[in-house]
Every structure is written in structure tokens, then in C-alpha cells.
């Protein structure tokens, strides 16, 4: 797949070795396959009667600024998209043949055109509510983003956090119970954080103090939390649902002006307290990780714990408290299930999203902002499936259900490239 094409002469006095451009056909081949697939789907599996149109609804009825619906002729639009895709794929082949790297923007543009074409094709003769697509994306991404933030913090400190799923579930459970009893969702949020921290304590104690393999502890914790919450759900919550499992949900808060931004406003600024709290959390974690003493020390124990030790940093203490902090953040995400969206706890209601959050951590290269974007991508894939099944898309629903996971696998396996985890991630520090 790779051939050597040229050797660059070393520049004088610079320590780096001459580097060699390896021609990588990976991107070009992937784009070509998708382009061919697009041709086949858009033209071969042509949808709708001749002259059918696809409608994109750009505003909701309660919006102040009303944008007209976008009505596209289905076949003509998909045809244009397919031609564009083929052209971009051909261009990427040409770029690779000249031993240059396929630029990222080309891949992104390819993905956008493919998505536009696909939506137009799928919506032949019906209407896609674009603001709704984005609202759902954000909603479905919230637990993923909290989970990914917790994962980033924990792994940057050098502890692999497979227990995100368990922390989400513990957060969901305890927030439901506490919010129901007290009648106060804010107390439920606090309870969720505490539950996440408790799961973290176990993870931290076993992996840092007793040096048990971190992945194994994480997996075991997930199973443990599923078992515990399911048990309490069926024994306590179900019989006493009125007392223990009817939490007040957070009310939706519309931010003036911002919520009226066309298309994106409803998605971002007509949300609940937890979502706004999440925006703050993403910003604070990013700033903290890269611009504060806390972040510098946190990253140092995850990269080279011995070096941190030799400058007087308590490695295992730093790891312990940051894994705990990570648990609290993931716990907030768990509260979103019960206090933000569903309104009651249910058995295994996190449904493996913790693992998708873990994938977002890796896809996001252990960076809070990139991990957030990755989580949004996964959220979009999930919601696309919802929307398309509602409008009655021609794609079998089983395929659509697979979509988020297919995106996850492709994202983590194929597109990550050379992302580098923290050097001491998963390795216990023994003096």
C-alpha cells in the first residue's frame, strides 16, 4: 500500500532525521469506494417518481425568524452530488499519485457532500426537519460528551477509564432516586456526581494502589454497576415508582436572542441546565488541561510519572483525585438520562453509550475539544437514524441502527491515523 517515493535531504544543524514521504493510498481508496457507492445508491437505487422533490425544513414553527423550506429536485441533486464525489475522489487519487497528502478539508468536504446527497436521496418525496436533526444531535451527544471529558481527564492522568459506562449508569440511577425523594433536580445532579466518584474510587483504588489491570477493573465495574442498578430497579424502584423514580426534569431554558439564530439556535440554546453546564465544563476542562498548574501536573503524571515524581509531584495522589474528578464529570452525564431526557430511571438505560464515549476519547486524540466534536459526530449518526426512520427512509432500519457503531469503528480504526495516547496511559506507577 505504501511506496517510498523521495528522500528529503536533512537541513544543516537540525536534529531531525531526513523524513521520507510514504505514499499512502488509504484516503484515496476510501474516497473512491464511497464515490462508487454513491453512484450506485443515488442513481442505481433511484428513489421517488421522476420529478420528485426532497424538502429540507429549515425553521421550526415557533421560531421568530422563519426561513423558507429548501426544496430540491431529488434526482438532479443526487446526480450533482455523485458527480462531485467522483470528481473529489479522482482528485484525491491524483494528489496521492503526486506523493502529496490528501488534505483534511477535502475529506471533510467529501463527507459533507456525501451527507447532503444521501439525505436528499433518503428524503425523496418527504421532508427532513433540519433544526430537529441538530436538536436531537446535541441531546444525544450530552452523555457522550460528559463521558468523553471524564475519559480524557482520567487517561491524561494515566488511568484507562473503561468504567465510563458504569459511571454513567450509576449517575443516572442515583440522580433519579435523589431527585425523586427531594423533589429537587439540582440535588439529583449532585447525587449523580457523587455516584460517579464512588465508582471512580473503586477504579482508582484497584488500579493505582493494588495495581490490578485497569481495563479489567473497568470492565468488572461496568458489570457490577449494571447488576446493582438493575437489582435495585426491580426490587425498589419499580414497586415504589411514585416515591423513588419520578424525578422532576430540568426545565428547558431558552437563551434570549441566541436561541433565535436560524437552524443552530434551537439546537444549542433551547436546552436544559445540564446542557449549558456541559458547555462550561468543556471550556473549563480545555482551559484547565492546557493552561493551568492543575493541567500541567495532570498531564505530567500521565506522560512520565517518574519525571513528575522527581520534581516533587505526588503521582498516585494526583492520579487518584483526578480519576475521581473524572467520575464526577461522567456522573453529570448520567444524570442527563434521567433528569434531562427520559424522566425516569430504567434498567441498563445507558445502552453502551459509555463505550462510544471511550471511542470518542480515542478518536478525539485525548483532547477535550476534539473528543467533544467526536461525540457530536456519534450523536449525529444516532439521531440521523431516528429522523430517517420517522420520515420512512428507504434504508432498512437494521442498517440505520448500525450506523452510529459503523461510524465509531471507521472513526477509531481508519481515520485516527497516528494519534498518540499519553505515554503512561494504563501503566501503574511503582517506585
Amino acid at each position, binding site marked *: 500500500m*505504501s511506496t*517510498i517515493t523521495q*528522500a528529503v535531504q*536533512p537541513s544543516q544543524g537540525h*536534529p*531531525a*532525521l*531526513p*523524513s*521520507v*514521504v*510514504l505514499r499512502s493510498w488509504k484516503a484515496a481508496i476510501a474516497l473512491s469506494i464511497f464515490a462508487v457507492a454513491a453512484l450506485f445508491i443515488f442513481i442505481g437505487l433511484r428513489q421517488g417518481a421522476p420529478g420528485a422533490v426532497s424538502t429540507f425544513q429549515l425553521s421550526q414553527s415557533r421560531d421568530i425568524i422563519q426561513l423558507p423550506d429548501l426544496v430540491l429536485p431529488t434526482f438532479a441533486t443526487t446526480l450533482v452530488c455523485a458527480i462531485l464525489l467522483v470528481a473529489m475522489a479522482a482528485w484525491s487519487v491524483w494528489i496521492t499519485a503526486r506523493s502529496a497528502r490528501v488534505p483534511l478539508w477535502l475529506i471533510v468536504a467529501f463527507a459533507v457532500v456525501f451527507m447532503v446527497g444521501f439525505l436528499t436521496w433518503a428524503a425523496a418525496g418527504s421532508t427532513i426537519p433540519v433544526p430537529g436533526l441538530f436538536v436531537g444531535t446535541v441531546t444525544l451527544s450530552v452523555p457522550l460528551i460528559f463521558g468523553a471529558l471524564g475519559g480524557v481527564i482520567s487517561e491524561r492522568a494515566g488511568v484507562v477509564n473503561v468504567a465510563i459506562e458504569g459511571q454513567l449508569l450509576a449517575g443516572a440511577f442515583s440522580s433519579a432516586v435523589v431527585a425523586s425523594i427531594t423533589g429537587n433536580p439540582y440535588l439529583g445532579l449532585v447525587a449523580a456526581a457523587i455516584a460517579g466518584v464512588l465508582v471512580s474510587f473503586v477504579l482508582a483504588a484497584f488500579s493505582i494502589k493494588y495495581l490490578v489491570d485497569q481495563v479489567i477493573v473497568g470492565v468488572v465495574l461496568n458489570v457490577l454497576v449494571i447488576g446493582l442498578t438493575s437489582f435495585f430497579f426491580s426490587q425498589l424502584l419499580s414497586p415504589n415508582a411514585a416515591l423513588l423514580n419520578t424525578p422532576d426534569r430540568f426545565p428547558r431554558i431558552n437563551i434570549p436572542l441566541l436561541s433565535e439564530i436560524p437552524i443552530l439556535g434551537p439546537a444549542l440554546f433551547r436546552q436544559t441546565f445540564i446542557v449549558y453546564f456541559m458547555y462550561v465544563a468543556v471550556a473549563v476542562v480545555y482551559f*484547565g488541561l492546557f*493552561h*493551568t*498548574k*492543575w493541567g*500541567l*501536573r495532570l*498531564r*505530567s503524571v500521565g*506522560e*512520565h510519572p*517518574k*519525571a*513528575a*515524581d*522527581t*520534581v*516533587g*509531584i*505526588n503521582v498516585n495522589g494526583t492520579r487518584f483525585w483526578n480519576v475521581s474528578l473524572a467520575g464526577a464529570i461522567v456522573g453529570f452525564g448520567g444524570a442527563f438520562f434521567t433528569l434531562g431526557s427520559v424522566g425516569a430511571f430504567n434498567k441498563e438505560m445507558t445502552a453502551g453509550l459509555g463505550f462510544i464515549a471511550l471511542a470518542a476519547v480515542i478518536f478525539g486524540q485525548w483532547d477535550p475539544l476534539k473528543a467533544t466534536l467526536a461525540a457530536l459526530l456519534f450523536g449525529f449518526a444516532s439521531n440521523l437514524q431516528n429522523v430517517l426512520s420517522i420520515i420512512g427512509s428507504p434504508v432498512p432500519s437494521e442498517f440505520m441502527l448500525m450506523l452510529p457503531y459503523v461510524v465509531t469503528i471507521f472513526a477509531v480504526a481508519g481515520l485516527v491515523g*497516528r494519534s498518540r495516547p499519553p*505515554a503512561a496511559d494504563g501503566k501503574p506507577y511503582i*517506585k
Partner: protein
Amino acid sequence: MKLELRGITKTFGALVANDHIDLTVEAGEIHALLGENGAGKSTLMNVLYGLYQADGGEILLDGVVQKFAGPGDAMNAGIGMVHQHFMLIPVFTVAENVMLGHEETNFAGRLNLGAARKKVREISDRFGFDIDPDALIEDLPVGVQQRVEIIKALSREARVLVFDEPTAVLTPQETDELMAIMRQLKEAGTSIVFITHKLREVREVADRITVIRRGKVVGEASPTATNTELASLMVGRAVELTVHKGEPKLGGEALVVRDLAVIDARHQLVVNHVSFEVKAGEVLVIAGVQGNGQTELIEALMGLQPRVTGAIELNGVSLHGLSVRKILDAGVGFVPEDRTEDGLVAAFTVAENLMLDRSTGAPFVKAGTLQRGYLADFAREKVTEFDIRTQGIDSLAGQLSGGNQQKVVLARELSRDLKLLVATQPTRGLDVGSIEFVHKRIIATRDAGIPVIVVSTELDEVVGLADRIAVMYRGGIVGIVPGTTPRSVLGLMMTGEPAPGAEVAA
């Protein structure tokens, strides 16, 4: 600052690493701590630096007893350390590394990188280092990284500075520069503890020398003592420092390497189109500072690198692109760089390790079954022949000392019918006695008419073993010179300067 260690004792289980060690370092003195690998020098310094807690004894600074619960306390008391394996975080910048652990912050806890940059520049200017505070550590050459370590220690007002084997990774020229820096520090009143096992350096820079053997102070020496005196003090018996070898009986060209290039996973040309040949009955030493492509070159010869171009021929047969198994079957013996990682399976017995690369057929395996009896006889014979000090052939390889482990590896490789021996860093971390043994076996192999390639970073070993020397620098061969080439020329070649009149290779 005057540093005194009184009766420091440190044990790890049954092993006594430090046994009542006394050491006094006066203010403004360079005090060398000399000892073999495993003598307990680094343990002692880790006790001083608060990384280990001593089981007995006390540490005094200017006559005041100190209690160090961790490195933070030691640093606050004015002790700094330049570690053998640099304690720098590769993905951080110089300034971030220097500030780590005592960060200054601005509003909202924001790191004050400006102050750290200023400090780096200030110290760097004082010693003429010329270091960019915003450079990432991983982009800097090791010599510069070491200077960052020094800056790190000085930024905390260290007045006692410990250098733990600082010259292991340096070129001879960089070593000279380091010596100058140490003298400069000394003039500024800093006390320096210089840990090393290299005699020449000690005599050059030290004011006083304390020798440690097996965890005990065995004597003091003055820098005017001869190498032989120091070595026998260090080892505890008279040692042969030079390798005895006769004139080589050269045969024809056995191994021919042409235009060999290796590209690593980071797409860097780590071996840059090298060509050389080795004659039968000759030792070719590949010299150079660690990390200049020697490892990758050897791995390419052994079929361990995925992206290799060029030609490798052994007695006219191409080895390029063959599997490791086929290369071993072609008669290539390989002593890897890291014996615990690549040379042995620590959890296997000595006997099993002796047949590790011969598990494919007779005489050790017949009809898919291990021939235990044959293996036992074979192992007992090799244990005697190579003087492997082990409780028995069923002892685990991991329990042997470094020297004996290396003997197991050598015994395994040399007991095959070799057409070529490749030994990388064959004496790294070994005691002087084992070094003598390994050197003798290598020369004996050469005298049996087998071509030998040795990779070494130790100039003493290079000069001692070589019939010819190929010096590598940044992936290329700077030149191939006779074994009698003076050290100063080799030192220059290690920094990339071609030797005058050297045979130019590709």
C-alpha cells in the same frame, strides 16, 4: 554547600544495596563516585534525592540533619539531580518542564509561562547554552536535553548537584563540554557529585574520588591515580583493561551490504543508504552515539524492520526480505541489544533459553516433541564451556546476573554453525569480569574465521575489538577507518565530521 552522608544503609529484601556508606562533599568540590554497574551508586543518590527512604543513617547539609520524605523536600533543601535517564516529559516544552512542580500562576490559575521562559533564557545565557524555551523536548538532541535537566536543577537554586552517569549518552565532544560546565558550576560554588564508571572522565574532572563496590565504600583515591589502580579498586582484583588480539587472518568478503536504507514508523530515514562489507575473520565495529541508526541497521540485517531497501548478501546469498527464521538458518548469530527484553525469556529455564531459536527441528525437536534428554546434556555442556554461574540448568534465566544472562545468549548463538555473528552492545551493563569474557569469545569467533559485526557506543570497547570501525551519525556511515584510528578522530566522526583520508562509504 557541604554535603555529608553518614552511615547510609538501604536494603531491598535480602539485597543490601548500600551498607553504611559515608561520603563527604565539600562546597565547591567535584566529587566522583566511582563503581561498577550495580555497585549501589544510583541507589545512594536516590536516597539523597528523597526517592528512596534510607533504612539507616543520616543526610547532613552544612552540618544540619535533613529529613527528606520525597524529592520535593530534597529540592527545597538545595539538592538537584541530573538523572541518567532524563526526567523530562517529551511532549512538553523546555519552559513547561522547567516550571513543572513549582509553577507560577497568574489570574484564574493560568500558568505564567512568560516567567518560566525568562528563567530558562537567563540560566541558559549564563552558561552559553542557547536553548529555545518553547522547543519541545522530543525535538531536541540528547546533549541539549541534558542541558535542560541542568537548567531545571539550577532554576530551583540547587547548590548540590548530582550527575548520574551523565556521559553515557554524549559524544566525546559533548562530554568535554559537560566537563567545562561542571567546572564552571564548581567555580560558582556548587558542590557536584559525579557518578560514573568511566575512569578517564573521573581523572579529568574530579577533585576527589570515592570508590564503591557491592554497596560499600572501599576506598578513596586521588585523581592522579592510574586507570589500573582505579579499576582494580572498583572491581576488587587486578583486571585486564585491554583486549588481547592478534593480527586478523582475513578471508574474502563475506557480508556485503549495499545502499541499505531503513524507514521507520514515523516515516524517517533512520538508516540512510549505507554500504559496507565484512571480511571473514574480521571484526567490524559500528561505532557512534546511541540513536544514530545502529539499532535499525542491525534490525534490518536480521529481518526485523519492515521497510528496507538495498542489498544484503552473505557469501553471495541475498538475505534481504527473508524472514528472521530464514536469516538465522543462513547462519547468522545475533546477540541483541537488550538481553532481558529480546535475548532471553526470563521465565524460561537456562536450558530452554539455550535452544530458544532452534525449536524447529533436530536435534532438539523430533516429531514435534522436545528432546529433553538431549537438551539437558547440551545445556550442561554449555554451562561448563561458557562458565555460566547458575544453580543448575533448570534455574530461571531471569534469576541470573546480567553477565551470566549474556553468557547464555552467547552460548546459544555461538553453538550454532555460524557464517556471521552480529553482537549489539554485547557488554552493556556487565561487570568488568564478564566484559573480559565476552570480549575473549568475540575475538575467538573472529579467529575461527567468522565475520563479526559489533555495535558499541563505548569508545574503549570500539578501540579494543575493532579491526575496522564504521562510525554512524544520523543514519549514515561517516566513514570506515582502521581499528588503530585515534580516539580524537573517532570522537569527531561521531559528530558527523568525516575523518581525513577515510574510506568514504556511500
